């Protein structure tokens, strides 16, 4: 009995070892199709010398950065991408200024006041930095009204939303909302319920809140008089705040008669949120439902976007028949003058790859962004990113970016 068992074990071991040694040989005999040449990832992005960079900042950009860094690093032998720490836009800027990060991710571009607060006495000005848009997102107004089908998109304008978030409009059947949606309600044969509106906001500091308040202040300046800010909004008695976009999404889904603002990608992640998505009035007088095309149309309406001032980097409420008015970029900030040639080269190559989309046969950062639920940067903005990165210099004032692809 024992001998049979021992011999069985021995036989298995011998067979196993043989297979393990032969496996590579067996594999090559089966012809795998050669991978198509990937001009964007292989040729221009490869590093000749080893370098390592790390980034940190905006949580909105975190899913994109994590996926992009992993993808890029796996295909570039000499490049080490040491991670992206989602510590928030403000902390990202601080990290860049004190040298912990090679690039900072931020939803709100760096301003001189931030530089003065975070790096006093170092003499940096805005001209010491280059800021590149790397992500584009839109903010959906998701609501939870029992009995309303997902094909019904209630229409809102900025004034109504601002009034809701100030507590001026308290009930769903308020005349302002009812009058605006008369035709839609009649067609769908539903009535607005006589229930109080529970609005959901962010409990933590967020770039999403910044874009949202920027939209309200731009499109309804007489009602929303405060400057755009990342701080949590004021809540009324029954209103709820969620931590992170996921928190807001969960709160809207679980509370009947609620409305909240979430990053567009979270609509895709939470299909039950798609029960109620608002159509928002844009500058051309059209009510638009959020979609990648609509958000891109809005972004494309401002090809000369610049991080210098709010008026120049804001893309909310822009004209365009199909433009979705609540949209915004997320930015990567780097020093214009890089002190380390290898790190600087990797930095510009990575950010250039990140801000571009590949041709049909290749994958670049924006293709990964799309897979992660972001909206791809319009082509003109990708060009803008390329031109901005061309201004980044290394030691000896050398232009670091030599990519020509895309």
């Amino acid at each position: 009995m024992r001998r049979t068992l021992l011999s069985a074990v021995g036989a298995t071991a011998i067979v196993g070892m043989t297979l393990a040694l032969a496996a590579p040989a067996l594999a090559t005999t089966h012809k795998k199709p050669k991978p198509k040449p990937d001009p964007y990832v292989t040729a221009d992005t490869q590093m000749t010398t080893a370098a390592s960079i790390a980034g940190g900042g905006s949580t909105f950009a975190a899913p994109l950065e994590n996926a992009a860094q992993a993808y890029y690093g796996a295909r570039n032998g000499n490049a080490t991408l040491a991670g992206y720490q989602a510590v928030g836009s403000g902390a990202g800027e601080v990290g860049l200024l004190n040298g912990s990060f090679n690039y900072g991710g931020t939803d709100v571009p760096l301003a001189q006041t931030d530089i003065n607060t975070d790096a006093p006495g170092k003499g940096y000005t805005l001209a010491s930095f280059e800021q590149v848009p790397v992500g584009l997102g839109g903010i959906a107004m998701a609501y939870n009204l029992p009995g309303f089908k997902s094909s019904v998109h209630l229409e809102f304008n900025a004034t109504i939303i601002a009034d809701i978030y100030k507590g001026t409009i308290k009930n769903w059947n308020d005349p302002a909302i009812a009058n605006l949606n008369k035709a839609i309600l009649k067609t769908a044969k539903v009535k607005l319920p006589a229930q109080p509106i529970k609005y959901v906001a962010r409990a933590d500091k967020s770039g999403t809140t910044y874009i949202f308040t920027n939209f309200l202040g731009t499109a309804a300046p007489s009602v929303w008089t405060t400057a755009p800010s990342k701080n949590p909004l004021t809540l009324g008695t029954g209103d709820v705040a969620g931590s992170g976009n996921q928190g807001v999404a969960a709160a809207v889904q679980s509370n009947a008669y609620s409305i909240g603002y979430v990053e567009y990608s979270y609509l895709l992640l939470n299909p039950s949120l798609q029960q109620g998505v608002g159509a928002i009035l844009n500058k051309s007088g059209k009510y638009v439902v959020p979609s990648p095309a609509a958000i891109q149309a809005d972004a494309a309406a401002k090809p000369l976007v610049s991080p210098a001032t709010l008026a120049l980097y804001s893309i909310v409420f822009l004209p365009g028949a199909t433009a979705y008015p609540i949209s915004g970029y997320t930015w990567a900030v780097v020093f214009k003058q890089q002190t380390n040639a290898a790190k600087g080269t990797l930095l510009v190559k990575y950010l250039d790859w990140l801000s571009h989309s590949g041709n049909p046969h290749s994958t670049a950062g924006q293709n990964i962004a799309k897979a992660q639920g972001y909206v791809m940067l319009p082509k003109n903005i990708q060009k803008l990113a390329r031109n901005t990165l061309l201004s980044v210099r290394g030691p000896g004032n050398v232009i670091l970016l030599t990519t020509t692809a895309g």
Partner: protein
Amino acid sequence: MAGVTDTATQAAPSPDLAEGRPRRSAKSDSVYWITLYGVSGIFAVICIGFLLSVVSSSLPAWEKYGTSILTGTVWNQSTGQYGALPLIAGTLETAAIALTLAVPIGIGTALAIVFVLHSRLRTFFSSLVEVLAAVPSVVYGFWGLLVLGPWFASSVEPWLVSLFGGHFPFQDAPSTETILLAGCVLFVMVLPLIVALTRDAIATVPNELVEGALSVGATRWQVLHKVVLPGARVGIVGAITLASARALGETVAIALVIGLNPNFAHSLDSPAATLASIIATEFQDSTPIQVAALGALAVILMAMTLLVNLIGRQMIRRAAIKVTVL
């Protein structure tokens, strides 16, 4: 806690002084003392350093806003108002709900485990309590959000609203995230703690007392009421103190289910906020003055927990003196 007495001050007799053994050299003794003083010194430095650093991080806020932090009723980071009173109220309310439910049920369960249950059930229940006490609190929060919350919103709260006829304390439209839900999640969290500690406290009551009481004709209820509970009073007060400290400081579980609304809770079915949950959610990306304001919240929370501990110790001291013997 059970058995907090002054016996720790008596040092155990050194084995070297036992009869017939030669005394070891004084050198090893001094190494012994130096090591003990050294490690207790490290402990003191860590504790005092920690307390001082938390307090000093909050100083800019105290300088700028003074006592308005303690008396202000509006907590709004965008307008720069840092009144923590609604948060203090929210912390106390959730802890009160949790303890009101957990103390009677916990003590009753402990009494049942020791006196009523069959020995096999007793072991099962004891193990169950130990397992539940070890579950991390974020799991309770997760369960509260996914299971208890929807059930409350769809069944329990509408029923309570109709029960009270739309009057206080259930006069608001039900939410999923409410102070009642947070209190109930906390209740489930502190219940195993109270049961475990009370059971240990009850077990220390000498069996002779119980049997003696029964032998002079006391009913079972009289034995529990007049012998066991008074005898275990010290341990029970300790259990409640520990449970309150846990309830006051609970962070992630509460943040998930309370709605993070820094206003006074209008009714039991409206969202609110606690000190710990606000510190945890609002910390990231804060400006220096915002960090200091959150540090002030931390100081307030520490003071509350310290106060609860001091009250508990005072009650233990008085309870230890009054031991009722039948």
